[in-house]
């Protein structure tokens, strides 16, 4: 059995969760203040993921940049692949929150979407 302490990052409360796990699954957690910690801690052990947020230049818009994010978290090891794939992308104004800026980024099956409106 493996044990460890993992900071849950689901919300800003940042619970320091004591976890026990074996080769296949999470066995127990302690000191979490809500039940959302279970799924986060399990993922953090077996398939850690992060939402990537960054900006992309805008062509002919009122702002030089549009802020974007991955529509769902990508595998933690692929964060820099996502950044590299976004490096040459230019978005075209007008842009609305939720517009897809890049489809299937780095072969993750996850889209990069706008998080602000640009006229």
């Amino acid at each position, binding site marked *: 059995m493996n044990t460890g302490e993992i*900071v849950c990052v689901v*919300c800003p409360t940042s619970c320091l969760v004591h976890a026990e796990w074996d080769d296949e699954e999470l066995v127990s957690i302690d000191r979490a203040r809500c039940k959302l910690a279970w799924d986060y801690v399990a993922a953090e052990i077996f398939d850690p993921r992060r939402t990537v*947020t*960054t900006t992309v230049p805008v062509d002919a818009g009122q702002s*030089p940049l549009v802020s974007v994010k991955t529509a769902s978290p990508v595998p933690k090891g692929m964060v820099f692949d996502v950044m590299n794939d976004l490096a040459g992308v230019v978005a075209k104004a007008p842009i609305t929150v939720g517009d897809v800026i890049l489809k299937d980024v780095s072969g993750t099956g996850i889209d990069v979407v706008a*998080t*602000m409106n640009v006229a």
Partner: protein
Amino acid sequence: MRTENVDVAVVGGGPAGLAAAAAAREAGAENVLLIERGERLGGILNQCIHDGFGTKMLGEALTGPEYAQIFIARLSDSGVTSSLETMVLDLTPDRELTICSEDGIRRIKAGSVVLCTGCRERTRGAIRIPGTRPAGVFTAGVVQEYMNLRNILVGRKAVILGSGDIGLIMARRLTLEGVKVECVAEILPYPSGLARNIVQCLDDFDIPLYLSTTVVDIHGVDRLQGVTLAQIGPKGGVVRGTKRFIDCDTLLLSVGLIPENELAKKAGIDLSPVTTGPIVDDQFQTSVPGIFCGGNALQVHDLVDYASMESQKAGQSAATFAGAGKLPDQNIDVQPGNGIRYVVPQTLSGEEAVDFSMRVFSPGSDRYVVFRRGDKMVRRMKQTELDPAAMIRVRVRADRFKGSEGPLTVEVTD
């Protein structure tokens, strides 16, 4: 000079002002004016492109611009008038504002005023770092604006002083954009930012965090060439033999925020020496009747959700005041006791439930926050972790204030 009358004037179009203005309108104030000095609404949220906003109020993790957009939409639905690129030059105790925009200077007579002016970053001058004065020394929020709104990269190799949340967020942001972040140095023996940001922003990218460490010298003439770090002992002095040079072209300062209260001072509002924001009652009314305050101008928040929630209440109270409705008498003083740095609000009526915000002096675990009035235990709440970086929020029901006399004290106990 032209003079206009409004029911409620809200100063500042960031998250606090947006929530206050919409809430004032929804609470029945006819004519609500939101005044913003920048060219767009949303304030600092626009440059906070990372996610994690809204988990407490909206139940989801949004980016800053997405969170702002929800409140901007609510504002336009509610029928508030907003005036962008408009500066408030003066505020009198009888709620007369002098404002300046492209249209010239105008006078606004307001039934009530809500101050949502946010805060400023502490600068190099405020922490007195010795050394030369080269280019390349920035506050973290300024770098955030340059990178995320203006598409300007500030350097190639950075050191971050202070482990406040903005500094941690910028450590990740700079790393993603190809800047080498050498380290984060924190003068205190514990981090100033939230644990989740230490994990997501530093640990994920193997950026070292040096505690009890600060910058004691700045080198370079035209451009920053490096900083000297040193360990700080328990009495605040440099530990001998710990000085070391770090090569870098950029230094980010994330060393604290100061509530912006120049207008409050002009109006003669009493400020708390601890929060440096106005002293308020449970309606978020300041010492000057009819002037209210919420958000980071009142107290520096960790979470925008709480800034919105508190300002919503301030906006509702402002609408009641402007409509000649009576606000409850405030006659119970709130006093911070053992272990508590401050509590907001500082007075209350005892007539309605109160959401208290407070901070502790030092970290701890498995302690209790206890509210007492006279002999009566009003509320006792267990805290598994106490962290000076994390504001504590506790709701106390109205009936708990009854049946006892004197001030309400709040303290940390075993």
